[in-house]
């Protein structure tokens, strides 16, 4: 019996031919890829294990999500990728997905016998890097290593896009066997502007080397040191090299700092909209940020930072959030952080009454009043920052951002608004019209609370009302969103004590998603969501931002339909993401420089897990602060404020 290491007598599986039959050296990527498989169905589990072994992967299987989590927690760098079933008795697969994304930031592949569009979409929005439909064929498993590579590559890209840093470090890839680099393009690094969504195909094989790069965990302390160094240098003068010197942390590289700095800057920018730091920060960030379009990484952490900078968040919690947020990277690509932020910012009120049950979350929150203040303040001052952040996050709100920037406050509010419905629309995609509309409206309202929000709200409301049947009047909502929040309530305790905006938005979106799926049980069609988009198009009188959104939605519609189509074919599901990516591409082409990628927008959602904690924290505070919502009058916002 000499099969242990897959020598000559490999199974007859046709796929085995592609693998090196001989010694399975750990570095013989992708052989040796450490896969964790989670599925409560013993039959499937056994088959998967066998298939993965045939692919020369190192397989660990477990039939319970809890077991999987503890395995992962106990050995954070012990696995490269996780494959999980969607329907499991002890924990929903998406929940597990979130946990993993938050805590370990590993690529996760979902699988299910369920090929309904909304489920696949849920996978996308929760940040799964792929979705396989059962029965899984070995061919589908052969290529899962691409997700690992892609994620690492995106992390590098993040570093790359730290704009101000020197280019020299780019080339240092540890030598790995690059047998799989079909195109030995070192030059890929130059394509830093490329979006990080999963549109990148396995071209970047040369990044296999990045696989082994140890990830820096930005712990609370480390982040605090970082912030101290940055503040000491002055945010405008803070360059990675100097920060690194000041921090004086052994083992920390300039790239780590650079990437962290980039995220931090994004946060600050966003925050500056909220607090009073703005203009200087804003301007300084606008420029470099443009270049870093693609890097949407974990803005959650950035938000926290900015909040902290604003002095409203305790550094500790910020750091923690930051650490968690930044720790997770850009692998999820295409996350419209701004989107999240905006939602966060504007919807903090919503969470308040929505997530009442988030007991755990609440306990994690520390500073209620501060956060609340921040939140209140955010909408008002956000706009310019929003624009900035949106710009940078680019991809989702590309067009909107641009537009808003042009206009200033009003535009920004518009932007915000667009962000709201936009993000919501994304979420809505999954659901049936009514629910969606209700959620959307309810989501929208809290969001646009303060002053500026007024203008936004109006627009928002108008947009929504314009939908006619699609949207119900604003008032409903909290109850609808509530129970999904329960799902999100259990955020990992070690995550984010702070409930900042990001958290809120993410929770909201999550809530929406969850709610939607639960509500939609019976109706799987995507049609309603498309209607929403169509209706968005209706108010042509609106600025072209709306139209742009519509455009993107169109693309997203197409994109959305793809999963359904692809999903129905066995073994083709792994193509879905690629299709989506292509769609995304085309959608981005639709708009000039704007890269509106609805599909991809959703993918970053996992980033918001950090936010969920924030959200709960926020909620807690909100409750402490009183009826925040009451302060904001959502009615009667005039669209007039929104310049075209």
């Amino acid at each position, binding site marked *: 019996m000499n099969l242990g290491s897959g020598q000559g007598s490999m199974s007859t599986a046709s796929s085995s031919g592609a693998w090196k039959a001989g010694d399975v050296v750990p570095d013989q990527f992708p052989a040796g890829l450490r896969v964790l498989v989670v599925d409560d169905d013993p039959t*499937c589990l056994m*088959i998967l294990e066998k298939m993965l072994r045939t692919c020369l992967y190192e397989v660990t299987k477990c039939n319970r999500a809890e077991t999987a989590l503890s395995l992962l927690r106990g050995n954070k760098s012990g696995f490269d990728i996780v494959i999980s079933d969607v*329907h499991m008795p002890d924990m929903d697969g998406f929940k597990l997905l979130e946990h993993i994304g938050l805590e370990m930031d590993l690529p996760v592949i979902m699988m299910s*016998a369920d090929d309904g569009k909304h489920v696949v979409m849920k996978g996308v929005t929760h940040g799964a890097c792929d979705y396989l439909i059962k*029965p899984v064929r*070995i061919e589908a498993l052969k290529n899962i290593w691409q997700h690992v590579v892609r994620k690492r590559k995106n992390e590098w890209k993040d570093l790359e896009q730290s704009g101000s840093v020197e280019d020299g470090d780019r080339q240092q890839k540890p030598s790995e066997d690059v047998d799989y680099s079909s195109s030995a393009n070192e030059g890929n690094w130059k394509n830093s502007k490329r979006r990080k969504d999963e549109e990148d195909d396995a071209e970047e094989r040369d990044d296999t080397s990045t696989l082994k790069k140890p990830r820096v965990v930005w712990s609370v302390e480390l982040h605090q040191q970082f912030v101290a160094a940055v503040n000491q240098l002055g945010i405008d003068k803070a360059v990675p090299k100097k920060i690194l010197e000041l921090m004086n942390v052994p083992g920390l590289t300039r790239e780590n700092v650079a990437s962290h700095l980039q995220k931090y800057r994004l946060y600050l920018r966003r925050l500056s909209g909220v607090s009073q730091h703005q203009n200087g920060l804003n301007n300084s960030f606008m420029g470099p940020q443009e270049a870093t379009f693609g890097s949407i990484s974990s803005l959650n952490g950035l938000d926290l930072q900015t909040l902290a900078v604003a002095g409203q968040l305790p550094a500790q919690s910020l750091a923690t959030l930051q650490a968690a947020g930044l720790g997770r990277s850009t692998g999820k690509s295409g996350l419209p952080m701004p989107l999240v932020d905006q939602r966060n910012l504007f919807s903090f009120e919503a969470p308040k009454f929505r997530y009442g049950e988030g007991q755990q979350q609440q306990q994690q929150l520390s500073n209620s009043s501060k956060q609340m203040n921040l939140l209140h303040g955010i909408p008002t001052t956000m706009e310019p920052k929003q624009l900035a952040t949106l710009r940078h996050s680019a991809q989702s709100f590309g067009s909107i951002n641009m537009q808003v920037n042009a206009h200033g406050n009003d535009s920004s509010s518009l932007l915000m608004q667009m962000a709201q419905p936009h993000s919501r629309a994304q979420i809505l995609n999954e659901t049936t019209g009514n629910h969606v509309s209700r959620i959307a409206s309810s989501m929208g309202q809290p969001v646009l609370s303060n002053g500026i929000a007024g203008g936004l709200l109006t627009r928002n409301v108008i947009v929504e009302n314009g939908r006619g049947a699609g949207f119900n009047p604003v008032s409903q909502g909290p109850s609808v969103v509530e129970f999904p929040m329960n799902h999100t309530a259990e955020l990992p305790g070690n995550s984010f004590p702070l409930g900042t905006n990001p958290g809120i938005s993410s929770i909201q979106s999550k809530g929406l998603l969850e709610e939607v799926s639960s509500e939609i049980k019976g109706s799987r069609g995507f049609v309603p969501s498309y209607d929403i988009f169509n209706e968005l198009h209706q108010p042509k009188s609106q600025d072209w931002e709306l139209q742009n959104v519509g455009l993107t939605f169109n693309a997203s519609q197409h994109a959305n339909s793809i999963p359904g189509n692809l999903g129905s074919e066995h073994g083709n599901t792994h193509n879905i993401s690629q299709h989506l990516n292509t769609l995304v591409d085309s959608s981005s082409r639709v708009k000039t420089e704007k890269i509106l990628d609805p599909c991809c927008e959703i993918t970053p959602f996992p980033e918001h897990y950090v936010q969920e904690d924030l959200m709960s924290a926020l909620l807690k505070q909100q409750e402490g602060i009183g009826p925040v919502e009451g302060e904001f009058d959502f009615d009667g916002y005039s669209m007039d404020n929104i310049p075209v």
Partner: protein
Amino acid sequence: MEVVQMQRRFVEYAASLFREGFLDGQFTQLQQLQDESNPDFVVEVVSLFFEDSEKLLNDLSRALDQQNVDFKRVDSHVHQLKGSSSSIGAQRVKNACIAFRNYCEEQNTDACLSCLQQVKQEYSLAKSKLETLFRLEQQILTAGGSIPIMME
């Protein structure tokens, strides 16, 4: 009986199962996964499937027997059965599950009961067919022959 004859019988029987839709390409995948390091892989997996399915079918019967049927639960069981049956290539069982799920969505108890019957039937058929197939296989092996590989 000669090994060659046995082998032929085996091949023909297997082919008929595919032809009649009892098995599909996924089963072939399983067969291809089997190798010298795991010579009983298919039998093991299928046995696991039988065990699991019987449990699921019992749970289903019980769930549908309740005063207030919890359709979510029923649906989840059926979904599981659908997943495992599709994973081993038991096509007809899988198809019966798909139909079953539609009725679950409609929350139609009677229709569900009849679907359950259908699924149980298909399952029994699949089980007996597979057991026959394995028996034929075993005969060949005992006689010293080798199992013809079925390529898709």
